[in-house]
């Protein structure tokens, strides 16, 4: 590591309670962000931007939302794809019916729509918990997608039942190329991530964690369970909704409601667990693993094996490898990829001295 924690003392409360206490970490994060914002759009190929980076960022945002609910507030939910659908179709309808509305406002409002629905479907959390809650939230998943699919109004009565996302226009400028859309996604995702870090570190996050660790105790200490749980549902659904809208507008572009099916919800869940529950960085690492690993395996095996063996066998073999890696990961580090990163950093900090 390029700095050491030893011998450093914070001399004021404000410096001690900063979001990222060490200046070096702040510089590192700023450098990564600057690299993503100023270097990648000009150097990465269109395939990397729109085939890899955009979906990765969008799903990371959704995973972050899921992690807020599951990792921080301890409420197991399986409705994330449903909330994504709500956000995506809300954004489409805001843009369609209120043409004057700037895209960021539509995005914000669609997040709020998802949040409102999230609160509604979060109500059972006051009574049930754990796996039972997860399956109860599945009701929202199926119901939201069914409603959007069934009623033509949401899709402006398109004869094929799909929507075509409008161009993203901000202050009169059209963001249409992969690089431009990537920049929009990156800025929004970075903003919301910063917000999430603040929430997680502040009193809101502490309330969530109190509820997660022992809700009866939290209630006894005067915390309103109703408020805290529903707040977590609202904020989580907001993230899912914004993520879903971005996913639809910058990645899929033409969207069928069934694109947000239960399997997507499951994949978001996998991302959070494998990334690391209750960590911000875990959302990014997990979505990278679940989203990108099958793609890389597919590219890798086609490049390596080519036409030499039956393509069906290759595809099935990729699934096996993916599953094996998932199991190995859980055995090697049950707390997720975020913990692996943390451990690595710890080691680096002690380097060259070993424990």
């Amino acid at each position, binding site marked *: 590591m390029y700095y050491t924690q030893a011998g450093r003392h914070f001399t004021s409360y404000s410096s001690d309670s900063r979001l990222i206490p060490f200046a070096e970490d702040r510089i590192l994060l700023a450098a990564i962000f600057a690299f993503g914002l100023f270097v990648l759009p000009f150097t990465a190929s269109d395939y990397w931007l729109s085939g890899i980076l955009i979906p990765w960022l969008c799903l990371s945002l959704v995973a972050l939302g899921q992690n807020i609910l599951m990792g921080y507030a301890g409420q197991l939910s399986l409705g994330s794809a449903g909330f994504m659908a709500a956000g995506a179709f809300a954004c489409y309808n805001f843009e369609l019916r209120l043409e004057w509305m700037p895209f960021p406002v539509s995005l914000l409002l669609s997040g709020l729509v998802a949040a409102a629905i999230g609160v509604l479907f979060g109500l*059972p959390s006051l*009574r*049930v*918990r754990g*796996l*039972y809650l997860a*399956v*109860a939230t*599945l*009701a929202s998943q*199926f*119901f939201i997608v*069914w409603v959007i699919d*069934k009623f033509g109004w949401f899709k402006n009565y398109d004869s094929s039942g799909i929507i075509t996302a409008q161009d993203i226009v901000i202050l009169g400028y059209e963001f249409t190329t992969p690089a431009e859309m990537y920049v929009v996604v990156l800025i929004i995702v970075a903003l919301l991530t910063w917000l999430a870090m603040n929430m997680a570190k502040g009193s809101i996050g502490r309330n969530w964690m109190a509820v997660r660790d*022992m809700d*009866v*105790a939290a209630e*006894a200490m005067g915390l309103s369970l109703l408020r805290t749980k529903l707040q977590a549902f609202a904020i989580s659904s907001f993230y899912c909704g914004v993520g879903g809208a971005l996913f639809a507008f910058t990645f899929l572009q033409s969207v069928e409601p069934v694109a947000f099916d*239960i399997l997507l919800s*499951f994949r978001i869940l*996998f991302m959070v*667990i*494998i990334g690391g*529950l209750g960590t911000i960085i875990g959302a990014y690492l997990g979505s990278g693993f679940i989203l990108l690993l099958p793609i890389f395996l597919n590219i890798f095996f086609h490049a390596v094996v080519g036409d030499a063996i039956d393509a*069906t*066998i290759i*595809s*099935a*073999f*990729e*699934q*096996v*490898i*993916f*599953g*094996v*890696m*998932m*199991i190995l*990961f*859980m*055995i090697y580090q*049950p*707390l997720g990829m975020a913990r692996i990163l943390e451990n690595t950093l710890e080691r680096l900090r002690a380097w060259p001295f070993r424990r």
Partner: protein
Amino acid sequence: MDPEILFFLEVLIGGLLAGIMYSLVALGFVLIYKASSVFNFAQGAMVFFAVLSFVGFMELGLHFWLALPVTIALMILVGMATERLVLRPLVNQSDDTLLMATIGLAFVLEGLAQMAWGVEVRRLDLGIPDVPMMWFADLTDIFVSTLDVVAGVVAGVMVAALALLFSKTKIGLGLRAVADSHAAAQSIGIPLKHIWMMVWATAGIVALAAGMLWGARSGVQFALVFLALKALPVLIIGGFTSVPGVIVAGLIVGASEKLAEVYIGPFFGGGIEGWAPYMLAVLFLMFRPEGLFGEKLIRRV
């Protein structure tokens, strides 16, 4: 009889029989959950793997009655391998971790099955006709398929046997102890690995039974994996830990979703049976948060 009443009865009976088919799938979940408090995401994949292997062995030329024990042996092997390679390294880990590991297992099983046996859709002929029993239809004008009745009987027998196993035998007691706490069970000398191996093998055999009956109805193919989704509301209503609850809940889910689809669905353009059972499950949870037959938990600070 009035044709409307007759139709209602037909929908009800059809739903109840469909529900038993769901119970068969849900049973595998309960077994594993009961013994290790793991939500086994791979149960659907196990159904697919088991029945595809069974059909595969038959295609290799094995007779039905030879293929059956061979597949059962294979499923026991899968259960043992799962215990040895996946679960044993994860003893005392959190439920989320174990859930994730079973998801990995699901990918492995799906991939292996497709690698070994290919992706073609197979037919499975059990020799049980999936057509209405005519004597019953003549008598009552209600169509009930022979296969459904057989499925109901199979499910009933399996549930009864497993319920006895859990409540009356020493193994069952051990299973329940393990479910409460891995560490505590180990410390009083319950052989965790044997227990788990047995449960996973049994779940594999249950998966084979479910797969054979479903495969006979709709072909042996990848879509069988999705049967797991149909089992979820059954689990919620029945409780994850109750074997008899699975049957009762299956009947409730089957009957209610069919009745909802037939009588309420047309007002909304149909297709509501996808979520109707989940809504029903949520309603149930409002009154019984641990499911119909689930163990009531007392929470202390």
